[in-house]
Every structure is written in C-alpha cells, then in structure tokens.
C-alpha cells in the first residue's frame, strides 16, 4: 500500500445531482474536492422553479390555497396553514375555536408525516433500508388519516380562509387517537434500529457541525437550528392558533451535528403525538368555519337547497372577495422551520404580491458551512439532515 504522502491528488469539481437519488429531489451540488475532502459545496437550485409567487398575483385569494400544497408537498397542511393565516390576518378575522383545534391537529399530523419521510429517506441514503420501510408504514397511516379527514392524501387543500373544509368525524378522532398512542412505540423501534447503531453513529456524530451563532446568522430555523442549540420554536415564542393552551416541550440539541438533528426530529414527533391528544381533549363543539358568507363557501348540501347559499357560492367562485389594503406577514413552525407568507394587498380580489419565506430555501444556505472540510460521504448525511424539499426551495 502506498504511503499517505505518495498519493497525488488534484482538485476536481464534482457535479452531484440534479438526478442523484440521495439529493432529495433536484438539488444540484457543485463540490470542489481535493481527494475526498470537500473544499467548497455550492448548491445550484432552480430546477423546479414554477413561479408560484407570480401565479399567486393572478389568482383570487381562495384559489391560491391548492398551490401552497405543492410547496412542501411532504407536509401540505403546514403550507395551507401559513397562507390562510396570512390572508386571515389581512382580513382581520379569527376562526372558530373548533377550527383552531382542527388546524392544530392537521398541522401536527403533517409534521409527523414530514419528519417520518425525512428520517426514513435519510436512513435509506446511509444504507439502512429497513427504517425507510418502517417509516413509510407509519406515514401511510397518517395519509390514511388525511384521507379520512378531507379525501386527499398528499395535496390536501383542506384549510380554507375562514376555517376548514370539513368537520372532524368521530371515526377520524378515534383513529387519530389510536395513532397518537401507537406512534411513540414505533419511534422506539426506529431508535432501536438507529440511535445506538454503530454505523449510524459513525456517519452522523460530529458530522456537519454548526454552532448556534452561525445558525442564527445564516437565518436557519426549525429543527436544524434547534439541534444547534437555538431554543426557538414559533409555536412557543409567538403562539398562533391554540398552541399557548397546549403543554409540550421543545427539544434542543447541543452539538449541532447530524445526529442531534436526528434526535431533535424524533423527539418532535413524540411531542406532536402529545399535542394531538391534548387538542382532541380540549376541542369544543362548534362550526368548522366562521359565519362570513362573502368569504367562506357554503357547505355543499346547502347549495342544493338554499338559494342564498347558491348565490354566495357563485359570487365567491366567480368574483372572489376583496381584502383590505395593507400588508401582513404570518409565519408558522412548519416541519422545516419558519414558513411565512408576506402578502401585500391593494384592496382588490387578488393579492398584489405574495412572498413565500420558505424554510428549506434559507436552511440550504448552511450546506457549504457544514460540508467544508468533511468527506464526500458526509455530504449525503448533511443534505438529508437539512431535509430540503424542492417544491419549497424552488417555489
């Protein structure tokens, strides 16, 4: 075997992606390498750019909700939520208590779905295929719950400006509570497979380290920032909906490496299950939508029997509704971090400007900082631990 000094290496630039299976979609990384060491990692994005913000300017407010599903398609409810909250803020309306609890449940279910995919795909990328299969088994249950809730599995379009589309049915409640009970035991399974697994530890411990100061300075949010020790969760620090009435913890990491990001996500799923249980306990009776016929579409069966409802339905669908002039920014803690919608209204039925503050987009800025000095194989773990979803990064 050649001595270390004898090996001659030269700098090369490796193009990883956009069709690489472990770049979670269409991430194109330009890696400057010396041997196997990364000198610089430069993400090249935009392969999925669809101009969502431009589309939004040309649609009625309520027509844009389905487009938000296609941002972070792994956790569509969170996107719906951030958008409808922003429009409701502009309108100055507050939804019913029941709708708030339903929204919390929906958002937490989608957090679980998002994190399950993150951990499953991450383990798959690092060679532990079993975990993906288990994670998808549970994710399937979440998707079934969504189907029960609104008839769709991935692109849900469930939240509506002024409330939610359908009320919660007793069967959904029963199944959802069953799932919330079951999930922690399943998380234990993943932990048995991964947390003390030597390969998993070798690949993730002390890989892609980022300090808290660096995270804040780079506008990193969500589980990635919390794994670095930034104790900041929008659900706790600026409570929206009913998060201030629910008891849950914010897991925070210490080392800011890939392993901490994994642990934080596992713990967040446990907390989500806890939140769902409490939300069902506290949920009052009531309507799923507020009573505002010029904004909220009437229920389907009313349209067939009630003339007024038919008129309102026709009016909203064909003309939309006017939103007061002004601007508002609403943000939620999505599975990836701070997801915000900044909407400028000029008083008409269509938004003048919609800006999506996508957490994956901002978080991806950390790639170079985390990869620099590491090995090529670490890049895979780092990208997985950042969990970018390209519907959201590229908008």
């Amino acid at each position, binding site marked *: 075997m050649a001595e270390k000094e004898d090996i001659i290496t030269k700098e090369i630039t490796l193009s990883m992606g956009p069709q690489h299976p472990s770049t979670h979609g269409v991430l194109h990384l330009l890696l400057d390498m010396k041997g196997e060491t990364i000198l610089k990692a430069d993400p090249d*994005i935009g392969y999925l750019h669809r*101009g969502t913000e431009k589309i939004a300017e040309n649609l009625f407010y309520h027509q844009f909700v389905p487009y938000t599903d296609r941002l972070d398609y792994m956790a569509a409810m969170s996107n719906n939520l951030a958008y409808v909250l922003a429009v409701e803020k502009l309108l100055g309306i507050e939804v019913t208590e029941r709708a708030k609890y339903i929204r919390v449940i929906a958002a937490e279910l989608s957090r679980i779905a998002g994190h399950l995919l993150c951990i499953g795909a991450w383990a798959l990328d690092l060679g532990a295929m079993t975990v993906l299969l288990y994670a998808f088994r549970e994710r399937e249950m979440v998707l079934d719950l969504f189907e029960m809730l609104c008839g769709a599995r991935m692109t849900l379009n469930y939240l509506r400006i002024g409330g939610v589309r359908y009320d919660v049915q007793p069967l959904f409640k029963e199944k959802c509570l069953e799932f919330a009970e079951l999930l922690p035991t399943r998380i234990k399974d993943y932990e048995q497979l991964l947390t003390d697994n030597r390969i998993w530890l070798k690949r993730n411990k002390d890989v892609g380290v980022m300090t808290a100061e660096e995270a804040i*300075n780079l506008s990193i949010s969500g589980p990635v920032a919390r794994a670095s020790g930034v104790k900041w969760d929008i659900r706790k620090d600026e409570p929206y909906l009913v998060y201030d009435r629910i008891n849950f913890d914010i897991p925070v990491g210490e080392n800011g490496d890939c392993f901490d990001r994994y642990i934080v996500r596992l713990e967040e799923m446990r907390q989500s299950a806890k939140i769902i249980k409490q939300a069902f306990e506290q949920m009052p009776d009531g309507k799923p939508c507020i009573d505002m016929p010029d904004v909220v579409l009437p229920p389907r069966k009313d349209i067939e029997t009630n003339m007024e409802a038919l008129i309102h339905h026709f009016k909203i669908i064909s003309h939309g509704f006017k939103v007061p002039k002004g601007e*508002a920014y609403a943000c939620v803690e999505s599975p990836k971090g701070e997801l*915000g919608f*900044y909407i400028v209204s000029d008083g008409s039925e269509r938004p003048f400007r919609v800006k999506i503050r996508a957490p994956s987009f*901002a978080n991806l*800025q950390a790639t170079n900082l985390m990869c620099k000095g590491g090995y090529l194989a670490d890049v895979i773990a780092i990208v997985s631990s950042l969990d970018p979803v390209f519907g959201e990064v590229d908008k």
Partner: protein
Amino acid sequence: MAVGPDSILVKNIREKFGQAILDTVIFRDAVSHLIKKDILIEICSFLKEDPALQFNFLSDVVGSDYYPQNPRFEVVYHLYSIPQRHRLRLKVKIEEEEAVPSVTSIWKGADWAEREAYDMFGIEFEGHPDLRRIYMPQDWEGFPLRKDYPLKGYKDRYNPYGEEKKS
C-alpha cells in the same frame, strides 16, 4: 401581542433616527418603517446590536414591484429577535437601476434572499459577495416577477405560447 405607537419598536427607532424614518405604519400588530436608503446599514447594525431590540435574525428580504409608480421598487426586510420575540419590517424604496446596500455583512443569511430579489426583480445589491441569478438560468433575459413581465413569459423557440416581445 398588540403593538402601539409607544412600543420600543416605534419609539426607540424614531428617536434615534428621526428624519431618516420617512413613515411608520402599524397594521395588524406589525410595525413597518419606511426608511431612507442611505441609513440602511446604520439602522440594521443598530437594530442588531441594541440590547433592547436585538434583531439577530433576518427572516427574509423581499423585493416588490410597484410599476408604474415612481420610485418603482421596494425592498422589504423582515427582522426577528429570538431573545426579545418581536418582529419588525423595514422598507426601502428605490428607482429602477438604483442599487441598495447589501446587508450580508450584518446577517449572512441575506445572501440567498438578496440573490432571489435580484433574480426576480433585477434589484442590485451593492457589496453582495456573489450576486448572480439563483432560480433562473444565468443567461435568462428579463426579470420574471416584475409587473411588466408577462405571466406566460416571452415567446421563443421553447415557449410558443408566450407573448411577443415589445421592442
């Protein structure tokens, strides 16, 4: 949390910068200051360092096009303070072809957000370390989110449904 005119977000900043704050709007519990472009860097450093304000997190940099108004563009900075838990919006109005100082020296996270504003609106950020397009191909012509850019794009060999370019 309700924000009034006597909040530190309004009072402290107006006291310190006075004339350079052109307008302050409080709408739906959010404070936005329209400021002069010249003091952008100064005010951002102050907001970040001041112990009562501590805006250590730059949430986003947004470009907006108010065509055909003059000045045409607006750059909006969304700031958040993790220790103090408050938000603030700063706005700068600029003409077409006018550059804004980059805030990347204060918050590194502004890097991609400013590149996006450049890509979509053609707003130049002075002092940005690497200002190039982020979503569109590097040789793309035009800036898609401008109000005078057609929704379907311009007609070319790849886009038969686009609009004809006005010469």
